[in-house]
């Protein structure tokens, strides 16, 4: 699948969709819509904002009329409150974030722009980008009581060029096609974070273009080649590999150990926002169906429904039995094709009947493969059994909450136990019983 030919990584921009669905709910909470059904919105207009100024704004990705505000299946398999905008066919200039030629120099102003620009990250970070990359002096003080780790200075800024999961090549694509804005974004993020060291993590066999390598070195970034072995691209594993620091789980993130991880696609988006004032209304999506030899990269408006995007994708994946938003390891199987493509989605994977035999409810045989490959050094065999038999306290004592749900244990299991399913079940039961108390 991974072709050395770079043209395969060239994304194609699809025509405007008839409608978009924009979720206004985040894992931390929802933002308040500032439009109501029936309103006309311009492209790039702000349609929802957070009263406290913590959660990022939501912007209209097309011009048109707001037709509905209602729950809609989101990228994580849960329904999210969303604003539905029906296009009026206009393709006017999008609203810029600031006037031409006047790039914002103040760091605080820059953070505000990042927050309102519509940048979303594919990794499920607990905090929005502008909170994560802000050095303590720039962090909104209202957050300190909730997240004491934000007081900690950022020592290492890690630019993540390693894709989150096998088969997804989005970051590789970004490094190839968005080189210019990526290089522009590096000094911006260095200034915001105040990091002493900046590392660029890339797969060990990646071929750099000469200009990219020179640009990165000029920017004072150390290039670190990592074995491209899943789950290397996930935050806890990457931070540990690169710095040797272990993120305390649960409840910790990269900031707890004085680091911050930003993926390369987001770096170039930051540059587009802070240098050119372009709100991020578009999404880069990889559409693939390995069994049909289909792999294409498309750029669509944020919130385009997969159904609408598919009309313009050729070759079209045929007769899917499973449609997965995200990738093969971390994605979510969707129950229809009417879900919005968002920056968090990254990839859509089509599987046909017979491509993948589902996991089965079989007893564990203690072969130890999961123990051997668990990146968190857990004993998934014991955890999965404890969750299976309802012994949740025991599972918690055996570090259930340190599981990052990467899925490696399911992948290697010879009897195909649904390991991730059992872990999530155990976590959900424990959280529910805690809420009751």
């Amino acid at each position, binding site marked *: 699948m991974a072709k050395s030919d770079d043209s395969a990584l060239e994304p194609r921009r699809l025509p405007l969709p008839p409608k978009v669905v924009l979720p206004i709910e985040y894992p931390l909470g929802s933002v308040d819509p500032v439009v109501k059904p029936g309103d006309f919105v311009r492209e790039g207009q702000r349609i929802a904002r957070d009263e406290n100024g913590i959660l990022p704004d939501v912007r209209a990705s097309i011009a048109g009329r707001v037709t509905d505000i209602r729950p809609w299946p989101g990228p994580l398999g849960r329904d999210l409150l969303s604003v539905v905008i029906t296009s009026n066919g206009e393709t006017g200039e999008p609203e810029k974030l600031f006037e031409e030629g006047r790039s914002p120099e103040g760091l605080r102003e820059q953070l505000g722009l990042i927050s309102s620009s519509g940048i979303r990250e594919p990794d499920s970070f607990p905090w929005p980008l502008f909170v994560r990359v802000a050095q303590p002096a720039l962090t909104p003080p209202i957050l300190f009581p909730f997240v004491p780790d934000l007081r900690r200075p950022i020592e290492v800024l890690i630019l993540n060029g390693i894709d989150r999961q096998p088969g997804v090549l989005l970051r590789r694509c970004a490094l190839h096609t968005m080189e210019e804005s990526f290089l522009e974004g590096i000094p911006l993020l260095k200034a915001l974070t105040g990091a002493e060291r900046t590392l660029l993590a890339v797969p060990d066999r990646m071929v750099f273009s000469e200009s990219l390598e020179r640009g990165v070195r000029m920017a004072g970034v150390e290039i670190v080649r990592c074995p491209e072995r899943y789950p290397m691209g996930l935050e806890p594993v990457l931070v540990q590999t690169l710095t040797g620091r272990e993120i305390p789980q649960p409840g910790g993130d990269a900031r707890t150990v004085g680091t911050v991880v930003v993926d390369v696609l987001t770096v170039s988006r930051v540059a587009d926002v802070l240098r050119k004032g372009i709100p991020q209304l578009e999404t880069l999506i990889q559409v693939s169906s390995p069994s049909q030899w289909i792999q294409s990269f498309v750029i669509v408006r944020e919130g385009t429904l997969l159904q609408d995007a598919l009309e313009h994708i050729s070759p079209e994946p045929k007769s899917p039995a499973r449609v997965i938003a995200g990738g093969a390891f971390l994605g979510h199987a969707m129950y229809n094709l009417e879900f919005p493509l968002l920056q968090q989605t990254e990839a859509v994977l089509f599987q046909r009947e017979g491509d993948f*035999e589902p996991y089965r409810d079989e007893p564990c045989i203690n072969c130890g493969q999961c123990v051997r490959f668990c990146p968190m050094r857990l004993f998934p065999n014991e955890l999965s059994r404890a969750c299976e038999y309802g012994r949740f306290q025991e599972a918690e004592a055996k570090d259930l909450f340190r599981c990052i749900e990467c899925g490696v244990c399911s992948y290697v299991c010879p009897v195909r136990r649904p390991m991730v399913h059992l872990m*999530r079940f155990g976590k959900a039961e424990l959280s529910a019983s805690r809420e009751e108390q």
Partner: protein
Amino acid sequence: MKRPELHVSMSPFVHSGNSVQKIMLDHLLALVPVMCAGWFYYGLPAPAIVLLCAVSAVLTELAWQKVMGQPVRIQDGSALVTGVLLGLLLSTLVPWWLAVAGAFCAVVVGKHLLGGLGNHPFNPVVVGWTFVQISYSGRMTDYPIPRPLFGLETGQYLADPALVAAAEDTEMASWVPWRDLFFGNVPGEIGTGCVLAILLGGVYLLARGRITWHIPVCFVASAWLFALIFWQIDPSMYAHPTYHVFSGWMMLGAFFLATEKGTAPLGVPGMILYGIGCGVLTMIIRMWGTHMEGVPYAILLMNALTPLLDRVRPRAVGRRVEIA
């Protein structure tokens, strides 16, 4: 595109293709050189005994699963591997019914009564072997003189080297050239003699990722070091350490028996302790015990300790060190 009917399920949506069948196939392939060595030294009775054990183990499992109303899983190959391994632990001179009894006991008592595949506390092969050994010890220790095919020279000693060592007759033990020990040209069970063949199989298992190096290496190394200490103290009383690790069940036990799924610890510290325990117990039983061969009993004893050893585990990544 029309509305397709979509399946939903939990991630991940990809699998390595690993299966119990593939694991067992690798174990069987790893045992091929050992079986060939048995055939080479002891003639046709060797494969006959192994086949008999294998067939009776599989049929026993089939009958058990039918009678108990369990789904029949003989196609996963685990009973086959159990049977083959048991056959390799028998002498070619045992009567046919003894082999069948051993296989029956291994599958029913060792495996199914105690929890089924991967959940039995003791290695079923060793359980089966121990049953026939205790019940018919006279017939079990009747070893044939190796008569290598192709007219190679046969060894000049009459007893099992493990027996020789147990008799503390170092003078006799020193007769056995190491070359013969290494190639298995000594009287003994079908599969335990040829160190070369077992190492070939063991390296195959390691290369395929079916076992890790911790248990076999710690097993053999700790036995060697333990024997070295006593050999240094009194060479006239105790056999040379290399003699110990090349003789008897040591190699087969370290690579194929001690590593059995479900009976050995899974964490690295546990595996290392388990290997060391196996090695030291083997030497204690060989040097001062009433049994000639210490390996099976050492493995059974350490199997019993496995749940405890699995509590010695590495700190999970990100676990905050709790200071009391």
